């Protein structure tokens, strides 16, 4: 039976939302293929109770493989998935995206000599096989990817797969013993999930004013805070400026940050790389200010302003205040 095995990431007693999306997608595809969708979790078993794993069954997993192992690192999961696939003959490994999904999927492809495709936005069944669709060249084209290996590795783009509780109910839980490769235990977690910067809430804001590297320096965020204040919204940031220490991690949009869909997303000095786009493209109205007319963000903004944000933002703040005051 060539089933689908989905990696389920968990942290602090909860299964990752993108992993649940991948389980839902896996269950949909498995039913079309006439097979089953299974999930695998790797971690401290004490923290992986039946209750913590219950959402996996509710999203469509028929079985959950549970392996005791280190958390937050990719290589132990490669060992665990290679073993489970070897023992059960899964035809596909599916990931919901995110940093670990990329690492595990690539490592697993190497281990199994399997085809791998990342940033997948859609998967369909064709002649009893899965075909992955991947946007390429800054999303200007979509390519079909066919697998020519015993196992196909599919790594979804963040938020590509919607989490749906289909009421399928509970999954059977099977504990597996994994003998980890020597190299898989040579990276050890010292600290996981450290929060840097203030704890801000951007997910509930109707208006977000987001800043990127184009601000030039950390102080550039002051004018965005003023504009966000005038618009009645909050300030968000790209990964580049968070990694540079200019703004709080809690305000970060994109691949390893938050996913938002406010009524208005105003991006200042943001080029619009895929890793950022995946976190904000569902916003109702996207306004971009960037001095580079070739910036990819203009490809998916509703209103684009080519110009110097340092000139535009302060005047815009005043004009918004005046308009709202009138």
């Amino acid at each position, binding site marked *: 039976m060539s089933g689908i095995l989905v990696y389920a*990431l968990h942290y602090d007693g909860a299964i990752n939302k993108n992993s649940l999306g991948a389980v839902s997608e896996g269950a949909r595809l498995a039913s079309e293929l006439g097979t089953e969708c299974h999930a695998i979790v790797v971690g401290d078993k004490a923290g992986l109770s039946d209750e913590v794993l219950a959402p996996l069954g509710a999203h469509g997993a028929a079985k959950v493989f549970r392996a005791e192992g280190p958390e937050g*690192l990719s*290589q132990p999961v490669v060992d665990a998935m290679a073993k489970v696939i070897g023992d059960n003959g899964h035809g596909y490994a599916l990931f919901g995206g*995110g*940093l*670990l999904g990329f*690492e595990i999927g*690539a*490592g697993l*492809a*190497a*281990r199994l*000599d*399997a*085809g*791998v*495709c*990342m*940033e997948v936005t859609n998967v369909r069944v064709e002649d009893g096989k899965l075909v992955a669709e*991947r*946007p*390429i*060249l800054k999303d*200007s*084209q*979509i*390519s*079909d*990817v066919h697998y*020519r290996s015993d196992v196909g590795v599919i790594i979804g783009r963040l938020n590509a797969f919607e989490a749906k509780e289909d009421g399928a109910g509970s999954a059977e839980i099977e504990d597996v013993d994994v003998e980890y490769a020597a*190299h898989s235990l*040579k*990276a*050890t977690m*010292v600290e*996981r*999930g*450290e*929060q*840097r910067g203030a704890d801000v809430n951007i997910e509930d804001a109707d208006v977000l004013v987001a800043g990127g590297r184009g601000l030039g320096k950390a102080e550039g965020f002051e004018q965005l805070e003023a504009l966000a204040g005038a*618009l009645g919204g909050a300030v968000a940031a790209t990964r*580049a400026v968070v990694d*540079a220490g200019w703004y709080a991690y809690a305000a970060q949009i994109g691949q*390893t940050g938050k996913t938002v869909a406010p009524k*208005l997303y105003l991006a200042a000095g943001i080029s619009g790389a895929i890793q950022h786009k995946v976190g904000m493209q569902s916003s109702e*109205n*996207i*306004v971009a200010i960037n001095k580079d007319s070739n910036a990819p963000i203009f*490809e*998916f*903004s509703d*209103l*684009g*302003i080519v*110009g*110097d944000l340092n000139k*535009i933002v302060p005047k*815009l703040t005043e*004009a*918004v205040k005046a308009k709202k005051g009138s």
Partner: protein
Amino acid sequence: MKICVLVKEVPDAAVEKRIDPSTGRLNRSGEKNLNPFDTHAIEAAMQLKEGGQIDVDEVIAVTMGPETAVRALHKAVSLGADRSLHLTDETLSGSDVNGTGYSLAQVLGKESPDLVLLGQQSDDGECYTIGAVVADHLQMPSLTQVIKIEVEDGKLRCERQAEYGYDTVLVELPAVISVGDAINEPRYPSLKAIMGAKKKPLESVAAGDVGIDAGRVGYDNARAHCSEFKAPPEKQAGKIIEDEDTNDTVEQIVAWLDERKLLA
């Protein structure tokens, strides 16, 4: 110890990239730049060498690609690498991630490096996965998207941003580490270094020299086969304003926001 840095030549960001419809492969003509992410990997290698906390004997730039990829190696050497290694063979052309990672692992195996560094992604393929493929073949611990490396008792203390915040991971050597662009500010090569780059040793090897199984590489053996390129669903192009008179620009933005009731 020996550090190998994986580098790649990519199309200049200003050159429009496209797929050659007759082959279904990326048209790589007009390539001339070292992948910008790789310059951070070379800089990380140089900082480890100059930092003195571990003894680095050699930094070797390694690439796989056609004849022209030598330019990426010259650039890497001008940024500080001591010598370079070029894997080039027609049979490798068109390899997918799986085949490319396997081939690079084979050529790296010849050098037995204590550390392999690479940029977290290539500017053209938009893929963050080669490091993990190489690491699995070399059976080394691996971490991607690292933004800080410190030496601690002969191990590397690495920081990166992951799904739930910043993680700190201690990695034993030998290891494969891919770095993000926040890790450092790459230096500019000196004129002397640029002039001297072509004089540094450059070794060229073919697939057979490093034991690459021809059945695992090349376009025809790609395990993941790309085809049938199509355009994504059209999104209606947004309105664009070129800012010439800022007062006028701001007026237009406010009117646009007001029309959509975003200033209520």
